[in-house]
């Protein structure tokens, strides 16, 4: 879990252009100003590229927080 969290944290900082982001499993889009609906799509694309995986659309729509993104990544790995 932790290794994925660190990689995601790095990726979020890069995509959202904010060095102060500190992700936790319970972090949601409401906690980060820059994480809006358009940036959410960029994040999904970058996550898929980084881990070389492809999520199912329905899976993405069920994510409630960062922890659930990590679970989806683990499922695919």
């Amino acid at each position: 879990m932790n290794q994925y969290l660190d990689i995601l944290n790095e990726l979020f900082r890069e995509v959202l252009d904010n060095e102060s982001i500190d992700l936790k499993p319970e972090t949601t889009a409401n906690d980060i100003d820059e994480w809006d609906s358009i940036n959410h799509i960029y994040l999904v694309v970058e996550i898929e590229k980084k881990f070389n995986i492809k999520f199912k659309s329905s899976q993405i729509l069920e994510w409630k927080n960062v922890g659930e993104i990590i679970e989806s990544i683990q499922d695919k790995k």
Partner: protein
Amino acid sequence: MLFNSIDFFIFLPIVFVLYWMVLNKHLRMQNVLLLIASYIFYGWWDWRFLSLILMSTVVDYFVGLQIYKTENSSTRKRWLWLSIGFNLGLLGFFKYFNFFIESWIDAFNSIGYNMDYYSLNIILPVGISFYTFQTMSYSLDISKNKIKPTKDFIAFATFVSFFPQLVAGPIERASNLLPQFFKRRNFDYIMAVDGSRQILWGLFKKIVIADNCASYVNDVFQNYSEYSAGTLVLGVAVFAFQIYADFSGYTDIAIGVAKLFGFQFKRNFNYPYFSTNISDFWKRWHISLSSWLNDYLFTPLAIDLRNYKKYGIFSAVFITFLISGLWHGAGWNYIVWGGLHGLFYIPIIFSKKRFSSISTSNIVTKNNVSYNQIPKMLLTFTMVCFTYIFFRSINLSEAINYNVAISEGIINNNIFNINLPDIRIILFIPCLILVEWIQRDKEFGMDLKAINYIAFRWFIYILVIAIIIIFGAKSQSFIYFQF
């Protein structure tokens, strides 16, 4: 029943007294009372359309339970489509039937077939665009495992029809509103006072600003061919304040009334005219609709189109705004209005600069404002105003003619011969802007929780009430009731 009517001023205290003094200890009975009150409130317009609300309620109550019970994902989907099909079917028939028929006939006539106009005299049931979206979101959220369905039919029916937000929103989500029907509600004096202030502020915006603007705007848009370019531009700007004061005023009353009964709605407006770009604007204007479209339309579309990168995102944005236009009204002018907002996203999506660094210039929450934001605010306001020409005109050709009239005025140097609006408008619109600017980190303009001097608070109350009585215009219906 209109919020700004005598009927409502009799209705509200009766429900309030029964709710807190008679049924205070009985949660379920309080819900029953709210349900009856909501149906009376709605039936005041036209009791026949209550059957539509009831049907929508029954369908989604049942579908919600079925989706939750079902494991098989394709069966779940079928149940979900029943809800979506039913609600969009209601909306399609009552709101769009004539529009589609007439558009088809026009298309056939334009290629040489001669067809007669055939249309039914369908009355638009008030609030249908709002409550169908609210019930659909319930089934959608259950299908995405975001919430669990309720077995309490009374609570669910009250959630669908709750009178403060039934006819023009805010479009509430089950995740926020439904649990509040199961929690014991104790009378909270501070919340009730806060709600009363919000109601008073909403009445001020509606009666003093919006209703005074109405006659000027109506005149300019009806007789645009007689006015100078300057007057036409001013007419649109005044309309911008009319529609904002009208709709956010309505919303403040709705949220305030809900607070009187111990309910907290989601915020629907966050000082939209202080936005610094169009994306910022849509995070502050009619938030309950834009977040609905965002969650159930834009995001699924953009996820499916994500391999097309920026083009995929733009397509999703554009389609979402076209649908948003159609949601507002069955007319090509609304579709163009939505399309323009979609096009305004092009610089945001395709600029080399990262989107985030543009969108986070959050002027409202920062204490020290950098003044280079002001030109961006004015530019955003101007863009929004331009789209209002299409929103306010009765149809697309009138909107185009309005634009032509502005251009002709400029070419013929007929610009500065300006026909000014009523003095009350010239006086109170700047007051509104000033108050909102000062209060921009508060929930609404008259949020006085932080002010400790009782005398000062009462001075404000009396001042606002006096202004409403002295300068208020003849009461009009709310603009968003037609959508």
